């Protein structure tokens, strides 16, 4: 038993593989946050007056708010005056071909295993690569434009599609929703904007790679996805961040609006730098993600594989307003070493015959703490609504923790809510069985963990599923090439 634990600690105590820093000149503004900084950010992005007003309103509200303290997390104090709130790569020109792109940047992508060229040719994925805060390259735009699909950086959308932004910005996540959402609303740098027109099925997976790069730079992404009537889109978000000693703050906001019979699938593989073996450094990931099933029979799916960040505070949620609308949350959250995660979802049933399902798989190793926190709320008029929740926790070793905090509030008697929860330890008899067939302990743990998470991984788009499987294994071993 002791040997087994020692072994588990050995294989789960390896280093992060994606630690490197890209040398790109960045255009940054001075540290700290005040109204002037908010104005500078807006001015640098050449924003219209209404956008600046939104930022200022958010900033003033943020000043009156307190950081949430209800999560099962120990968050060190954050000095907002020590953070740079805007950084953009200096070369702002738009490129026609990859030859014009800073070679250093391309090398970064190569190290991450996502060469743009290959992505373009092989996978059919349109990649909107975000390095630091400004979109550098957008591909496949023309193919999408032919169908009337808008896929661009948030800043571009503010310039070219102000009506859509003004109509939908803050609809799912209001500027005053919570501390981190208010902060994001005040200083958001850039992000992605997607609009799928009526009756259109987006012909490819839309994908954005986020990356924190410049030192001491807070990263405040803002993403807005609108799926008009009878449309469909699958959106992928994936992250790997370079190794850092100082903690970096990441407070993103993602909003999804699904109109009548529209379907949005949002998949994330999150691998921000988690800090070193001793819990030094790592990203603080405080994200607000929410979708509204606004139209009848609309559908929103959140799929996530979370392996990174020192601290994760994240609850991708759905508000089911349209009658017969459907929402799903499928999550694998893995924590190792001294990582802390408090993650889950909220499913708010308002419309009739609405259905939601939650599958959460937590994996804890090392000295980490992994919590599921979920709310299922059924409003008085949400007749015949249904929810199914399944929350499983898997423990590796005896020094980590797993917690489950399910909240259920039902105000309608015709609704059906089911909740199942399990906690298990990775079986040393399972590992030994693999060993006896010639499979090393490292590979055995990877295999068993992937088996445990398979239900969720199977929901991911193919190319992402492969990446996610590797990531789970790497996050536990750190040695597989």
């Amino acid at each position, binding site marked *: 038993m002791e040997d087994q634990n020692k072994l588990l600690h050995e294989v789960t105590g390896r280093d992060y593989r994606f630690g490197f820093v890209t040398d790109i000149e960045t255009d940054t503004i001075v540290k700290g946050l005040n109204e002037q900084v908010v104005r500078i950010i807006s001015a640098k992005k050449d924003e219209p007056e209404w956008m600046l007003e939104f930022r200022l309103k958010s900033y003033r509200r943020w000043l009156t708010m307190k950081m949430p303290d209800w999560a099962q997390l120990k968050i060190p104090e954050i000095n907002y005056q020590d953070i740079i709130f805007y950084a953009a790569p200096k070369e702002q020109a738009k490129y026609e071909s990859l030859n014009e792109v800073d070679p250093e940047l391309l090398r970064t992508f190569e190290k991450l295993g996502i060469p743009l060229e290959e992505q373009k040719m092989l996978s059919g994925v349109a990649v909107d690569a975000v390095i630091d805060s400004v979109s550098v390259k957008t591909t496949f735009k023309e193919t999408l434009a032919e169908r009337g699909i808008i896929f661009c950086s948030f800043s571009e959308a503010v310039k070219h599609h102000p009506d859509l932004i003004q109509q939908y910005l803050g609809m799912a996540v209001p500027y005053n929703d919570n501390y981190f959402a208010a902060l994001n609303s005040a200083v958001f740098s850039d992000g992605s904007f997607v609009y799928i027109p009526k009756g259109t099925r987006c012909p490819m997976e839309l994908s954005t790679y986020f990356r924190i790069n410049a030192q001491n730079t807070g990263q405040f992404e803002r993403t807005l996805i609108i799926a008009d009537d009878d449309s469909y889109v699958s959106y992928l978000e994936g992250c790997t961040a370079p190794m850092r000693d100082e903690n970096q703050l990441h407070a993103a906001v993602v909003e999804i609006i699904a109109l009548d019979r529209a379907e949005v699938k949002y998949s994330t593989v999150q691998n921000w730098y988690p800090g070193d073996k001793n819990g030094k450094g790592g990203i603080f990931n405080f994200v607000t993600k929410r979708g509204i099933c606004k139209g009848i029979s609309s559908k929103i799916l959140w799929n996530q594989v979370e392996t990174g960040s020192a601290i994760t505070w994240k609850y991708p949620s759905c508000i089911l307003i349209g009658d017969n609308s459907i929402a799903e949350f499928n999550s694998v959250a893995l924590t190792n070493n001294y990582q802390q995660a408090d993650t889950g979802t909220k499913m708010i049933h308002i419309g009739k015959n609405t259905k939601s399902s939650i599958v959460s798989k937590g994996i804890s190793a090392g000295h980490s703490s992994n919590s599921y926190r979920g709310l299922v709320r059924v409003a008085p008029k949400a007749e015949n609504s249904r929810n199914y929740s399944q929350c499983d926790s898997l423990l590796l070793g005896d020094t980590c923790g797993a917690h489950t905090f399910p909240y259920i509030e039902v105000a309608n008697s015709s609704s059906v809510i089911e909740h199942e929860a399990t906690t298990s330890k990775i079986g040393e008899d399972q590992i*030994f*069985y*693999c*060993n*006896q*067939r010639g499979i090393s302990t490292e590979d055995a743990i990877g295999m068993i963990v992937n*088996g445990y998470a398979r239900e969720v991984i199977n929901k991911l788009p193919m190319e992402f599923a492969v990446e996610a499987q590797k990531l789970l294994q790497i996050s536990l071993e750190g040695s597989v090439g």
Partner: protein
Amino acid sequence: MNMLKITDLYAKVEGKDILKGINLTVNQGEIHAIMGPNGSGKSTLANVLVGNTNFEVTHGTVTFNGKDLLAMSADVRAKEGLFLSFQYPVEIPGVSMVNFLKTAVNEHRKYRNQPPLSAGDFLKLMREKKAMVHLDSQLTNRSVNEGFSGGEKKKNEIFQMAMLEPTLAILDETDSGLDIDALRIVSNGVNLLKTPNNATILITHYQRLLDYIVPDFVHVLYEGRIVKSAGKELALELEEKGYDWIKKELGE
């Protein structure tokens, strides 16, 4: 050179001494049966040999094809050609049999500096070996041992043995829980896998298995020691008279 040579082996589990001086030699082409009353240390011996870390070796040596077996980790022992058919095969949810075995086979090949099998060759090999133990085709699409009946689990163990082609196979009460048809199928599988170059250790309570797989030697394990060794006729004698006469012989 002896394939397996166990010399004065002592081992304990959870602080309790179980093996108290085992001596046993197994050569190529031999089949050894180890019998003995409950709690005599039969399964402990099997687990110690394949490197289960819950069992602690306190004294003695074991060589396997001339190498120090006790110095190797469990997965290396497997790749050196040692196989255990488990008494209670464990379920691994979410891991398909195909994926599991493909990994295992290719790890063995890597150890021997052979390239991994192509998907096509692997599936062909699997079909061939499945037929040998009459394993239901659908079972390999399921998760490892998940939802398998007792008999299916045992057949699955022999199927894995067929896939990995060990030099020394230890069958730990593979016959328990099998009906007579399944026993015949499993035994046939074991006999088909027998070559002049490999060897088998059968751990069993019952003579009936030895009607199908005929041993060259029968050993009686009692209180952590091999107290009697003879030819296959010893099994019949045990079946008839039980273990009491051996205890008497030992002066107890």
